């Protein structure tokens, strides 16, 4: 059974060549990757469909496989290999190392393997998810506690497993199970709604209602959701918590772009009640309004520093739209960007030290850049792939979610903080201004 059955040498030659020619990081994947958070190239991973035990519904196994594959496609550091077709027996293997045809998986192009088994335990599904090192013919034991599955919802278990696998290979926590807010439009000029979704692009839930314009979502206190709605023919600030919708700010003109800072409990936002877009802060209940900017130019798009002491924002006070920073009381404003004539939508890394923003480049395409606050260096994150805009950082500062038109439509993508690995998380377009959960 376990005797090695290598495919004919001729067919395998290109594979060996690739393995020899490329950097060997994937080989080292199982051992030392923790030191270097990102592997030098994507690690080829095979994901088998789940095996149902004791007559459990086979379709569930297919769903588990699909969810796992989607997670690893979005996890950025993996390349999910095509299911092996030449050895159909691989798909029916058990979980034990002795039952695993490592050579078969290796010949299918995989260096890492994921297998799943499940059994019905009363009302709940019980999942057994495993990771294997195909090159070393052994199982990789993950240090995590699998969550209990409630009913048929196996997703929390799959997310926790995928996160543990990411942690194993990068040393960083995974992001599955976290949520993203975004605006979704069914068509241009049609209704715009605030939605929440999981980082794997599933579970899209509409937050706003009606047939109007609801935009610029942000996370508020205790999981509340802040957004701007034109339901009353004026851009008013709404706070949604559970089924409650509360109007927080409804001055005539703009009440837009709310940004909440958990550290001081205040919301920064743009109001134009004094005839011009200015930045203000207020308490999360809408009281204690304080004006931070005062000039005849546009000041908008506030983004808090992680310690709530400073605010990055956009102003065209110098003649073109640039990123500025000021203290939380409005003092000490200064420009952070000077190159180009259109730098907008700042997002402050939650680890601090970096601000991502959207710029219009010399070819009039919109792309994402990141500014290092310590050195003042600006690095480009996207290029030559449609328009890439409106970035938001993951809670750990290791990833960004953003919109891209590279595949048509405006889809949500995620990338590593250095822009090296990027992947779409939504299958359809029509998404705007994502905001990653705290």
């Amino acid at each position, binding site marked *: 059974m376990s005797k090695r059955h290598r495919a004919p040498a001729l067919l395998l030659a290109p594979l060996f060549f690739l393995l020899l020619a490329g950097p060997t990081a994937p080989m080292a994947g199982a051992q030392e990757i923790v030191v270097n958070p990102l592997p030098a190239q994507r690690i080829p991973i095979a994901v088998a469909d789940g095996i149902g035990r004791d007559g459990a519904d086979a379709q569930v196994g297919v769903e588990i496989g699909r969810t796992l594959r989607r997670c690893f496609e979005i996890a950025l550091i993996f390349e999910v290999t095509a299911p092996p077709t030449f050895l159909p027996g691989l798909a029916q293997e058990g979980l034990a190392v002795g039952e695993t045809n490592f050579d078969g998986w290796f010949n299918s192009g995989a260096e890492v393997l994921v297998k799943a088994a499940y059994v019905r335990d009363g009302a709940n599904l019980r999942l057994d998810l495993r990771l294997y090192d195909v090159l070393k013919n052994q199982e990789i034991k993950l240090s995590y506690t699998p969550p209990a599955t409630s009913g048929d919802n196996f997703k929390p278990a799959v997310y926790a497993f995928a996160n543990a696998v990411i942690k194993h290979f990068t040393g960083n926590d995974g992001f599955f199970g976290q949520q993203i807010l975004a605006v979704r439009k069914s068509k*241009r000029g049609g209704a715009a709604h605030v939605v929440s979704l999981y980082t794997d692009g599933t579970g899209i839930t509409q937050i706003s209602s009606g047939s109007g314009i609801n*935009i610029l979502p942000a996370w508020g206190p205790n999981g509340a959701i802040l957004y701007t709605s034109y339901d009353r023919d004026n851009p008013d600030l709404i706070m949604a918590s559970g089924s409650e919708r509360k109007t927080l700010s409804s001055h005539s003109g703009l009440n837009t*772009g709310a940004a909440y800072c958990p550290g001081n409990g205040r919301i920064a936002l743009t109001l134009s009640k004094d005839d011009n*877009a200015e930045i203000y802060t207020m308490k999360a209940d809408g009281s204690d309004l304080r004006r931070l900017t005062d000039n005849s130019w546009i*000041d908008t798009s506030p983004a808090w520093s992680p310690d709530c002491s400073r605010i990055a924002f956009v102003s065209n006070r110098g003649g*073109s739209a640039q990123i500025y920073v000021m203290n939380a009381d409005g003092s000490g404003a200064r420009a952070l960007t000077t190159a180009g004539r259109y730098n907008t939508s700042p997002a402050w890394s939650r680890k601090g030290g970096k601000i991502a923003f959207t710029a219009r480049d010399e070819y009039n395409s919109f792309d994402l850049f990141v500014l290092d606050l310590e050195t003042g260096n600006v690095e480009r994150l996207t290029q030559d792939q449609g328009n890439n805009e409106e970035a938001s950082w993951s809670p750990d500062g290791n990833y960004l979610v953003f919109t891209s038109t590279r*595949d048509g*439509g405006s889809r949500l993508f995620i990338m590593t903080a250095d822009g090296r690995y990027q992947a779409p998380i939504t299958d359809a377009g029509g998404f705007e201004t994502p905001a990653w959960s705290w």
Partner: protein
Amino acid sequence: MSHVFSLIYSLRLLSRRRFAFGLAIALTLAISACGGPPTEALDAAEKSLLSAAWSEDCATETYNSAQRMLREAQEAAAAGRHDEAKRKAEAAQRLAEQAKLDAELNAEECERRKNALRAVEARTETVVHNVTATNETETFSLETIYFDFDESSINEGSRRTLDQNARWLLNNQTQKVRIEGHTDARGTAEYNIALSQRRGESVKRYLQTLGVDAPRMTVVGYGKERPAAFGDREQDHALNRRAEFKTH
């Protein structure tokens, strides 16, 4: 591929043993065909583009991208970069299908945009031919004005339009007006809203200098959320950078 199958078929007629031999030849041919130019993918992409041709006006950017992608695929195929050609041909096909879908979704608005374009062209002619006409009529409607990219200042042509709008507002003192500022589809959402608000405010200020009372005017900035034109051509963008007037 058809010659491969006919080869199999004719060999099969000869004998079973030779069939195996024929199959081997066919497989060899099929395998070598994998390394050739991706004719099928290119054909499929061309077909998709043809059937999406009508969407050029309504989903211009996507359609143009599809065209560009197909051109690059053909160039790659000609240069022998077959993998790249196949990838690009498939991307072109996807883009063409997306263009078709977008155009279907936008059909209604696309028609509106075309009408708006025609209206702008007609108005330009009117302005040229009736410079001296000063007649005010009851049916006069407040005219939309347009802005340059990332600009909220009022240009010379818009001043003339606003002068007419102000005259009408002064003659109809009971009317209140809502000034709605808009931007084109390019750029980020929040900055666009602030820019559109600023456009509305500069219109309000200008009308104030002409004697229209401030309390009669409210300003709402819509950013890029309510386009008048749905394409991605420069003309479409120009039509969207505007301030409209709603009386109530």
